[in-house]
């Protein structure tokens, strides 16, 4: 499974994505974010205000309690500034 990072989050991490294999007890997107933060101090710091981020599975924005079963591409999205 791929995790994508964008904008200043990508810059803070010095990479645009990770290839991950989460353990089977990781059920939801929120579980996944907690697991990713626990193993990466830079990500943990960058996400200290987690409510500002949106999350996506397979290129659709979904709530954090969505199960990750079937996910091939996940993204952590800082506040958007399009338009």
């Amino acid at each position, binding site marked *: 499974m791929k995790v994508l990072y964008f904008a200043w989050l990508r810059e803070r991490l010095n990479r645009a994505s990770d290839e991950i294999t989460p353990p089977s007890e990781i059920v939801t997107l929120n579980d996944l974010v907690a697991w990713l933060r626990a193993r990466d101090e830079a990500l943990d710091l960058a996400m200290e205000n987690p409510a500002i981020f949106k999350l*996506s599975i397979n290129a*659709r924005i979904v709530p954090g309690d969505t199960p990750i079963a079937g996910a091939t591409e996940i993204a952590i999205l800082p*506040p958007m500034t399009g*338009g």
Partner: protein
Amino acid sequence: MILVSKSPFDPGAEANRLQAAHTEAGAMVTFTGLVRSHPDDPITALILECYEDLARNELAAIRDAAMARFGLIDAAIIHRHGRLVPGETIMMVMTLAPHRQAAFDGAQFLMDYLKTDAPFWKQEETAAGLRWVEAKAEDGDAKNRWSR
């Protein structure tokens, strides 16, 4: 039509094309977002990062929601990314409706959702370097008015 691309586009030509495709419309509204440079704090460019697959999916969903909610005859969103200089057109939304209020409301709805749910991130390029544009709290407020 949803178009997400690095290529420039001609806003007037796009508007004329959409207008010509429908004869049952009485009202058309367009919104065009432009790269502006403030004389007191000039920028040399605006650099837009984009998650293209998500952008196409979310913009299509926002468009479908606006079409249904306001009874629009058609609606289109064009959004560029990459490096744009002052005066260039960043994006455009267009709505066609039988009457004017639906066309105005549809265009505002599209813009309010696009500001918070479309995966674009802007950086301003200045003489001092690059800086990320911060999201505005008022954009979230503007979107929330549609759920009241």
